[in-house]
Each structure stands twice: as structure tokens, then as C-alpha cells.
């Protein structure tokens, strides 16, 4: 009987036993991204293990490396919150001198990337280090207990953006680090989501195979932070794509006039209303009682698509 090659590698670098919450979206990113990375390394260098990981402080760091345990089957280092990209730069430089073949993978959450680590990220990209930086975006500081980051979407409840008499919740539009990364004109920038694992897998592989830096912003729902049931993680992420909240795109060499989109409706008309995405999440619950709030969020999402060069209709 013929055995079909599995569509993704059976190798694992993210071991079971880590302490992430049940239903953690970002844990899925860790597992899939390292698998994809290893496959790319095997195809490019003939060695699936030809990578090391630099990790920013954050959820995925804390749950995976509590002395004397580790969930990592690859060389892995954590140093601090804001410097994963700089640490990765140093490792890459050392690897050159050591004669190691391969690539460095850096992980940071949205706080560690969009906020406190943005400078180090910019430096790493600009210096053209051979590093893939993956921002796992759960849209708030989840590790410290759900505080807003610049990647928190408009209207979301967090512990520092509580809705109230004088507050809608988070009152700023979401910051898209992928576009900032693209402005560095690096070989490859993309967004991805755990709801489309094949797309995620393909993009991580592509990022891993380019010569030079690449950046990925990957949507990973947070069960306690988004106030969702653990079994709804993938469903919520899927709705983010289907309602137009989460764009899937690729930008090569900073060419923002030729962005490639994935799962974008041909006519620009999203079929599902964003309310379907919002209503599953406790963090947006209050918006349904605020006249105009959801409409404002829709306008912001349309504006985001306009920046990406697309006119869209949201039902």
C-alpha cells in the first residue's frame, strides 16, 4: 500500500507539555511555524535542524521554558522583552563566523514587536540579517493579563482599555506592523492566520527560504484575552478572515503596489458581517450596546483595505 507523504512534516520542535492555555492560538503558531521552518531548512540546506530560535519575553516564552523544563527541541534562547530581533542579529553574526548553515527564527508577541521591540525589529530588518521574525499577534499584552497594545483593535476591551461612561474600549485603530516591516523593503513580508494552516505553512517556508530578512504577522486568538471558549479559537480566527477583519497578504521587496492577497473576495464584497466575528468574543460584547461603534470599526477596516489598495464592501 502506498503511503502518502504528509502535507506537513511530522517533525516536532514544540513539544507537548508546555503550559499554554487550552485552545491557545499562539501555541498553534509555534508548532506550525517551526515545522514549516524545518521543512524549508531541509529543502534549502539539506538539514531540517539548521535553525535556532530567539524568543522575546511573552506568553509563548513563559509557557515553554520554565527551568528545568523546556518545550523546545531546537536551539532556543530568551533574553528580554524588546530585543529578540537584536539577539537574533547577534546569533546570525556568530553563525556566520562559526560556519553554520541555516537561518535564525525570532518570535515576539504583538507587545514585544509592535511596541517595545519595534526599534530592534527595524534595526534587524534594515541591516538585512538572515532572520525570519514572526510576530504572533493576539492583539494585547496577554502575558501580563490583557493590557492593550498598539496592535489591539478598535473597540476591544482590555484591562487598560475598559469600556465605561467615557470610554468605548480601545479607541485607536490597530497598528499593522507588517506594513512597517514592508517599508524596510525586505525580501518578504506576509500576514497569516492559524485558521489557514496551509497558507501559514507556505508563507513561513517562503520566508525561511529567502536570502535575508523576512517578517510575518500571524493572527493567534487568545482564549482568556478575547473572552472566547477554548474550542472556538480556530472558528474565531477563520471569521476574522471571512469578515475582512484580518487581511492575508504578501509583500515582496516592499513593493506595496503589487501586494498578493489570499482568500480575498474577487468582487471585494465580504459575505459575512463583522458582527459574526465580534459576537463570539467577550472583548467586543459592549460594542453591540454602543450606537455607531461597530460602524466606526467597519470604516477603519475599509480604510485598512484602502491602504492595501483595495476597495471593499462590508455587509
Amino acid at each position: 500500500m502506498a503511503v502518502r507523504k504528509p502535507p506537513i512534516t511530522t517533525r516536532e520542535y514544540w513539544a507537548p507539555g508546555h503550559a499554554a492555555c487550552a485552545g491557545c492560538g499562539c501555541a498553534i503558531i509555534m508548532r506550525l511555524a517551526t515545522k514549516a521552518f524545518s521543512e524549508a531548512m531541509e529543502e534549502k540546506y539539506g538539514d531540517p535542524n539548521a535553525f535556532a530560535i530567539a524568543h522575546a519575553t511573552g506568553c509563548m516564552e513563559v509557557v515553554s521554558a520554565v527551568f528545568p523544563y523546556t518545550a523546545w527541541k531546537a536551539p532556543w534562547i530568551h533574553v528580554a522583552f524588546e530585543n529578540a530581533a537584536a539577539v537574533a542579529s547577534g546569533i546570525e553574526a556568530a553563525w556566520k563566523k562559526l560556519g553554520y548553515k541555516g537561518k535564525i527564527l525570532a518570535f515576539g508577541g504583538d507587545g514585544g514587536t509592535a511596541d517595545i521591540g519595534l526599534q530592534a525589529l527595524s534595526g534587524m530588518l534594515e541591516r538585512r540579517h538572515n532572520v525570519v521574525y514572526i510576530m504572533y499577534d493576539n492583539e494585547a499584552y496577554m502575558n501580563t493579563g490583557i493590557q492593550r497594545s498598539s496592535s489591539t483593535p478598535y473597540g476591544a476591551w482590555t484591562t487598560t482599555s475598559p469600556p465605561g461612561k467615557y470610554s468605548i474600549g480601545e479607541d485607536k485603530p490597530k497598528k499593522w506592523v507588517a506594513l512597517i516591516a514592508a517599508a524596510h523593503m525586505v525580501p518578504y513580508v506576509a500576514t497569516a492566520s492559524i485558521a489557514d494552516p496551509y497558507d501559514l505553512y507556505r508563507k513561513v517556508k517562503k520566508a525561511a527560504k529567502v536570502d535575508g530578512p523576512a517578517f510575518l504577522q500571524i493572527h493567534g486568538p487568545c482564549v482568556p484575552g478575547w473572552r472566547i471558549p477554548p474550542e472556538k479559537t480556530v472558528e474565531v480566527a477563520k471569521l476574522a478572515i471571512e469578515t475582512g477583519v484580518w487581511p492575508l497578504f504578501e509583500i515582496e521587496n516592499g513593493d506595496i503596489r503589487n501586494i498578493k492577497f489570499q482568500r480575498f473576495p474577487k468582487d471585494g464584497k465580504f459575505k459575512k458581517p463583522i458582527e459574526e466575528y465580534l459576537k463570539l468574543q467577550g472583548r467586543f460584547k459592549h460594542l453591540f450596546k454602543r450606537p455607531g461603534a461597530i460602524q466606526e470599526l467597519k470604516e477603519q477596516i475599509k480604510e485598512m483595505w484602502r491602504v492595501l489598495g483595495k476597495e471593499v464592501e462590508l455587509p
Partner: protein
Amino acid sequence: MPMKRVMKGNEAAAWAAKLAKPKVIAAFPITPSTLVPEKISEFVANGELDAEFIKVESEHSAISACVGASAAGVRAFTATASQGLALMHEILFIAAGMRLPIVMAIGNRALSAPINIWNDWQDMISERDTGWIQFYAENNQEALDLILIAFKVAEDERVLLPAMTGFDAFILTHTVEPVEIPDQELVDEFLGEYKPKHAYLDPKRPITQGTLGFPAHYMEARYKVWEAMENAREVIKEAFEEFEKKFGRKYQMVEEYKTDDAEIIMITMGSLAGTLKEFIDKKREEGVKVGAAKITVYRPFPIEEIRALAKKAKVLAILEKDVSFGLGGAVFADVSRSLINEKEKPIVLDFIIGLGGRDVTFEQLEEALSISEKAMKEGVEEDVYWIGLRKEIL
């Protein structure tokens, strides 16, 4: 044969780095240290130093990249000063805690505010609790030598702690002096190749570095840093001895000058020791029983050496270019700690002097000495003095 060249302190530091052959250098420009990375980039550009030079976007990333490189298993070097060192502060603790023997050259400079590019020691003094070994150089030759020695000590398996060597802003960083450049072969012998057993990021033997330490483990990890710093005392002495045998220049934790019959010993660090020795010569000619001591190794603090020194004198007068607000000078606190449980101890007085590049003159040293003489005869009135203040603008 070693060659002798006239060079600035910054160049001496760059030469030390070149001789130590670090594989990765990450640095960011800052006055007065900028010439160190400039010179190193020339060495790299000319093929005289086979290293990766990462031109980072901040000092925070400079030290972070050094941590990445050192954790990957190579020798790493950086240089900075003042605000740059302060920006590194967070990562300095981590470098020590992760036991990464990074070496750093510091052009000792004042901290803001007001912004000031000139010399004092507040930058390095403020990092005294980070777990880094600290050397202070008196002249450009010492800057070069103490960087080489820093690598030797830092990488010793009994230590495995990062180390910094400071030399005074402008007084040394920008002043030319003749410096003997040791032979590369001898430096290679002295330092050997860096082959860490504990820190590597090698796909063939994956390990996890930088884990979370719960209360069940954290304190022991910190104790190991304490123990390593204690071990460093002996390792530094061995390194000094080996250095002297190989290169002919002698170093000590504390270098004494005309202390044998001294009633008052004036203690300082860095280039001020040069001025102080001249002042001592003058006072000796006048028949005053005063001597000097220079602290070369500030961390680990030379507690035993200070105790031995204290047995010789009635007054220890500390001249220091730093202040811990609400306490006094840091060196004063360190010396006091060294003596607190001694049965007999001299008077210890603190003189805060020369902050932000203010010239330290013989007049100022006279003032400190006369206060010390008065305290010796009449007892202590105060124990912390600011010397050389312009009272007319206060």
C-alpha cells in the same frame, strides 16, 4: 617584538579588541567612545580582524546582539559610555545571569542631566550590582592590558561572567600616549581560543537558554553569580601574574604608592591616580606622611586589600568621581563595608570630586588632605565632602 605606538585610549581599546580576536562586535556611536567602533570597523574593513561587525541601532541592541553572539558560542565585544551604558542596564544583569563572558570597553563619562560628555565614573559605578567584573585603567597602556585581562578572567570556567574596563573620558579616550602593543602570538597564548561548554546554539546539540526561574531556583542561580564573582578574585590575581610573566607589566587589585609609613592614604581609581601620585610626591617632599592607593579592580571589590591598607593608616581619604545620592560616594560605601567589622579601623572620609569633567587640581587635593589632617587630629566632623564646588553659582 612588541611594537610601541603613540595612540589615544580609544585606539588602545580597539587594539586590545583586535588582539583578542572577537568573532562578533556590536556597537553604537557615543561620545567619548565612538573612536573604538570606528577603529574596529577599519580593522574589519582592512581584513586585519576577522569578525562580524554589527552596526546596531542602539546600545540596547549592541549588548543584546553581544548576548546573542556569546550565547551562540563566540567571543563578543562592545564599547560604550554613559547614557549608552545606562541604556544597556537591563541586559547587563541578563548577560551576567546567563554567564556570558562578553567584554566591554567604557570611556567613563558623566550621566545626564545636565547632559555632559566629560569624565566621571557614574556610568560604570551605577552598574556595580549587575554582576559584571569591573576594571579601571589609569592610562592608555592599562586600558589595552586590562581589556585583554578582562577576556582572560571573564572566560575562565571558574568565573564565566562578563567584564568591563573603564578609562576616563577625554583624559584617556582622546589623549595620546605611547602604548606597547603586545605580540599577537603571545596574546593568543594568553587568551587561548574561546570554546564554551555551557553556551552554544548549535543545531546538533539543541539547548534552551534564558529560562524562567521560579522561586525554587532563582536564588540559587543568583548565588552562583555571587560565587563566580568571589572566584574571580583568585582568577584575576592569577591572570595578573600570568600577564606580568608574558608581557612584563604588573597589575594588582589595589596598587599602593608610598603607603608604608603613611598616616593618611588617599584612595582613588582611574586616571586620577596619576595626578594623585604626583601630588603625593610633592607632599612627601614637604615631609607630609601621605600615600596613595589605586583601585584597579572595583568588582569584585578588593575587600582584603582594603583591610590590609587600612592597617597602615589613620585616615583613608577616598577621592571619587561618582555619588550615590542620599548616601555618599559608592567607593566610600564599599570601603566602609570592607572595614565595618574590623577591630581597629582608621577614619574613612569621602571626597566627591571632578564630576562631569571638572579638572582635579592640586588645590582641590590640598583641601581634601587638610580636611583629612584635621579629622586625624580633632576627630570627624562630617564624612562626605564635595570638593571644588563653585560656591558663587550655587
